[in-house]
């Protein structure tokens, strides 16, 4: 074993052979210990260590970190290697289930492109250095002697929670900086702002299982949403209820959720707010009580009669009336807004118009109820959006930053070109990336610190959406580190010790810090009279700690709604839809070969980018499937192969996020295009979030064609009974009720 890492035996000594020792004892690396090396005694498997039974897998609990949902997982460990992830049945987020991203996390852990040693920029290029040298260079820049203080320092991260978030905040406080930029491309930041203003709670509990009708405006809760597995389990209850729930999806491009809708309603991008007001208009016409609605909003609703809304949105007046009738007749319903509503300059107002429908329909208190809060607000997830990306680019532009630490985010890839981030980053003298992979941000940094993978490191997490029960979820090592690197929590402690020696010197490592934090909890949280070690062991075994949840009440109130007139753009007639994918997500999973080869749920395309267009649009543009389409915005152009289907509005062109990496290892680099790059400037007026769905583009055949690589060449069943469909009437009448 390499000399500079933490030796396994030392590691176990630190852990004191407690319940944790149990977890780690299953993690030997027999293949790497050889006689020739002579560094460790070779022990035959005839005398295996405790808990290692050759040929038998043992499961350990941990937390998935493939997205911010924070699902509980079990990892199967055999002969010291982690082999398979499954959901933790004790988790109230995923109930033992796991999505494809969670399954594929192992390929990040075992990825052949992982950075093995710290990289330091020397003479313009990144060079491998030892951890001593790397941390030495870092101490020079951010240590007590560096004089760095205040807002000249910043953290730039993805969603963080748990004790890492606590330590990260402490580090910022120690330096006296306010700058914690939190960035997620797939987020619900606008929706949170709307909820906070209109309900008094940013993330209330949506009772899908109670709803009889769900009207979803572009909310891809089954796919690229806030907690895909949680909502999928709830969706199953919604669909098997009695009567079966009805899902209507209104959006410009069919998402995974739209693909499962009973009625999929295409809509001109940016007119969802008008559609919602049109529904409100119909509801009032049908006698829904609007006593609490102020006069100005009532006037706004009155101005959105069916014919006007139909002409704005490209839908039909008849359909509007029918949806309103359905919502009124089958109560309670649930109306949701998603990324395609929120991603406009008027995103807040549009989402507010959607939320107003819930109030008119009396859903608040029935299908939208208070989600509650935990007693540990400092550990709850710090959720981000794109506003912080703009603020960060601005700070870099004004040369306000001397040192920035990047963790769990890849802004050089996700930032639209108009932010000019690549150029502006040159204004920051010292950039540190805590990254395992040679992604775009890491390769533009001055120091790259390869942290341990989520399967090798300690940590605690709180999922961003925990509406039923607040839990602190444990992340524990499922095997020994592949490379002798350092854990993120250990690094945070080391940074804190650079500034606040006294406060943190008693913690030898992050593990002892965590154990201390848990055993110091009051008995009410611990649940029963247990010794510290018993409690800690039990918590690790279960993988999570349920903490008391304080459920408040929602305080519904209406807000101003300002929707602009929809305008055609003769020069750029199409809307660009940069859709998120359950799979490659915002591009962070493009280096996982399983997910590259897992077909997109809607188009079934693998390994590349594509542009989805409607057959009528294809005819208008004179392109066929496989033709390259050149899509041009005011920020640039990209070319992608055309995929033609009828699940997209005729005025929209959808290019999925995820591909178009310039770096990021062998599986991701140089594959497809990144639609975020050609997003036009613009942000939501209220929240400052980027208007990701507000870009107008032109499109023209690029004059070349390639075979479009996808699963299955048949789009139809050729008259065979492959997927048979029955009506919900039949289902409600004939479905055997005895089987669960």
């Amino acid at each position, binding site marked *: 074993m390499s000399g500079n890492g933490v030796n396994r035996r030392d590691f176990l000594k630190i852990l004191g052979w407690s319940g944790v020792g149990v977890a780690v004892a299953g993690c030997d690396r027999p293949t790497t210990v050889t006689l020739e090396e002579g560094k460790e005694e070779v022990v035959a498997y005839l005398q295996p260590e405790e808990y290692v039974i050759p040929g038998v897998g043992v499961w350990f609990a941990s937390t998935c970190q493939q997205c911010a949902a924070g699902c509980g997982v079990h990892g199967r460990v055999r002969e010291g290697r982690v082999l*398979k992830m499954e959901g933790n049945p004790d988790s109230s987020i995923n109930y033992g289930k796991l999505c494809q991203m969670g399954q594929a996390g192992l390929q990040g852990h075992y990825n052949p492109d992982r950075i093995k040693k710290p990289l330091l920029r020397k003479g313009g290029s990144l060079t491998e250095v030892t951890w001593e040298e790397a941390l030495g260079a870092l101490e020079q820049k951010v240590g007590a002697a560096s004089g760095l203080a205040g807002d000249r320092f910043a953290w730039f991260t993805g969603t963080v929670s748990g004790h890492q978030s606590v330590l990260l905040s402490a580090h910022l406080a120690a330096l006296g900086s306010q700058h914690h930029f939190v960035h997620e491309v797939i987020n619900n930041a606008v929706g949170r702002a709307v909820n906070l203003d209109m309900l008094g709670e940013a993330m209330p509990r949506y009772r899908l299982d109670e709803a009889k009708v769900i009207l979803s405006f572009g909310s891809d809760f089954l796919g690229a949403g806030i907690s895909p597995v949680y909502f999928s389990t709830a969706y199953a209850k919604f669909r098997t209820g009695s009567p079966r729930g009805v899902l209507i999806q209104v959006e410009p491009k069919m998402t995974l959720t739209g693909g*499962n809708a009973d009625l999929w309603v295409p809509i001109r991008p940016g007119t969802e707010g008008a559609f919602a007001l049109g529904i409100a208009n119909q509801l009032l016409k049908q006698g829904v009580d609007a006593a609490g609605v102020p006069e100005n909003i009532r006037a706004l609703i009155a101005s959105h009669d069916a014919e006007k809304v139909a002409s704005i949105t490209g839908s039909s007046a008849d359909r509007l009336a029918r949806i309103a009738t359905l919502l009124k007749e089958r109560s309670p319903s649930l109306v949701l807004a998603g990324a395609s509503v929120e991603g406009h300059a008027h995103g807040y107002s549009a989402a507010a118009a959607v939320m107003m429908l819930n109030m008119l329909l009396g859903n608040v208190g029935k299908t939208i109820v208070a989600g509650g809060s935990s007693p540990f607000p400092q550990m709850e997830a710090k959720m981000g959006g794109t506003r912080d990306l703009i603020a960060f680019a601005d700070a870099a532009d004004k040369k306000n930053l001397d040192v920035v630490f990047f963790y769990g985010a890849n802004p050089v890839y996700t930032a639209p070109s108009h932010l000019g981030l690549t150029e502006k980053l040159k204004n920051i003298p010292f950039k540190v990336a805590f990254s395992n992979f040679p992604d775009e941000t890491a390769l533009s940094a001055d120091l790259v610190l390869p942290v341990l993978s989520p399967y090798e490191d300690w940590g605690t997490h709180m999922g961003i959406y925990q509406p039923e029960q607040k839990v602190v979820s444990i992340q524990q090592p499922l095997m020994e580190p592949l490379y002798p690197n350092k854990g993120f929590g250990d690094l945070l402690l080391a940074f804190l010790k650079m500034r606040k020696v006294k406060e943190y010197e008693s913690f030898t490592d992050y593990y002892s810090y965590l154990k201390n934090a848990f055993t110091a909890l009051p008995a009410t949280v611990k649940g029963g009279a247990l010794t510290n070690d018993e409690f800690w062991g039990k918590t690790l075994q279960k993988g999570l700690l349920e903490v008391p949840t304080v459920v408040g009440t929602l305080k519904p109130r209406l807000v101003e709604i300002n929707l602009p007139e929809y305008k055609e753009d003769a020069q750029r007639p199409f809307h660009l839809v940069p859709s998120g994918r359950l799979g490659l997500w915002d591009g962070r999973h493009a280096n996982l070969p399983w997910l590259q080869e*897992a077909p997109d749920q809607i188009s079934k395309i693998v390994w590349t980018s594509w542009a989805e267009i409607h057959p009528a649009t294809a005819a208008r543009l004179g392109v066929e499937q496989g033709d390259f389409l050149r899509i041009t915005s005011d920020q640039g152009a990209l070319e992608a192969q055309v995929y033609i289907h009828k699940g997209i509005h005729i005025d929209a062109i959808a290019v999925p996020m995820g591909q178009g990496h310039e770096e990021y290892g062998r599986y991701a680099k140089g594959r497809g295009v990144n639609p975020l790059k050609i997003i036009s400037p613009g942000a939501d007026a209220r929240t400052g979030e980027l208007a990701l769905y507000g870009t107008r583009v032109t499109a023209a055949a690029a004059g070349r064609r390639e075979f479009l*690589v996808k699963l299955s060449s048949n789009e139809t069943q050729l008259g*065979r009974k492959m997927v048979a469909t029955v009506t*919900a009437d039949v289902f409600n009448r004939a479905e055997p009720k005895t089987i669960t």
Partner: protein
Amino acid sequence: MSITNLINDWSRYRKGAEEGGFHEYEHQWAMVVDLNKCIGCNACSVACYAENNLPVVGETRFAKNQGMHWMRVERFWDEPDLQPYVATASNSLDAWIEGNPPAPRSALKPSNPAPIAEGMLERDGKGFNEQFGFHGTKSEYQDFGGSFLPMMCQQCHSATCEPVCPVAATYHTPDGLNAQVYNRCIGSRYCSNNCPYRLRFFNFWSYYEDAWPEPLHMQLNPDLTVRDKGVMEKCTFCVHRIRVVKDEARMENRKVKDGEFATACVQSCPTSALVFGDKMDPDSQVAKLWNAHQVKQGPYKQTKENKELRGYRILEGLNTDPSVMYLERVREV
């Protein structure tokens, strides 16, 4: 071995469909796929890759239909004007089974793409039901979403792949599984030619050479092999997981309990659309579902008392007798 024994053994196996097929199984591992719950998310497929050492073949090989996805999720649009093929009474598979072969394949090819008719994109103001009828809809949009279909080996009880294997590499186990013996397989590919579901996958390459660059190979599941070039492979219903629980049950002198384990795909399914179990165990969820939906193993055509029950088996008219029952997709109209 005498000729009498041979004939006796033979006639034990040779039970026709009208007699309900072979009866002496120890277990009958079976599955139910509820298309009302399936959202087409792909979790099952990737779970299968993780569990069964499936190689990632890369873009160019995938383009040649060499993808090794034992579990795949098909998505049908069922909209005739993308590929102008409309099933009629005379060219459907049902008609073919009844003795009327479908029109030759060339007749299915798209003629000139239909021109966009004047006013096609306008609404005609018709009612919900009229305007959005089911198959063969004239609607210009995908009004009812997609049709997702998880497809794994259907573990047929009269499998078309089994009798054509020249070396008996694929055979039927006493568990009712359609098994593949890798080291007996000579790669004739007759079985995959004969599989009507396209669920057998051939190793055209030695994928281990480039599918698992170090240290990706450390994830490989030691419970099963990595297959080499020239071998046919397919979904096994996670037979290695079945082995473990059967061994454990035998050591504890008990029967395998329902829900004691599940295949990788069933375990991961976020909506629990997939159910797995032993159909011989009358208390298993699988057996209950098959019974409740009045789907019987054996016949090539189901005679249900209640015709509205959703259970069906894919292409069962070919008399393959699959072990996977699908429950029809549901849409509100």
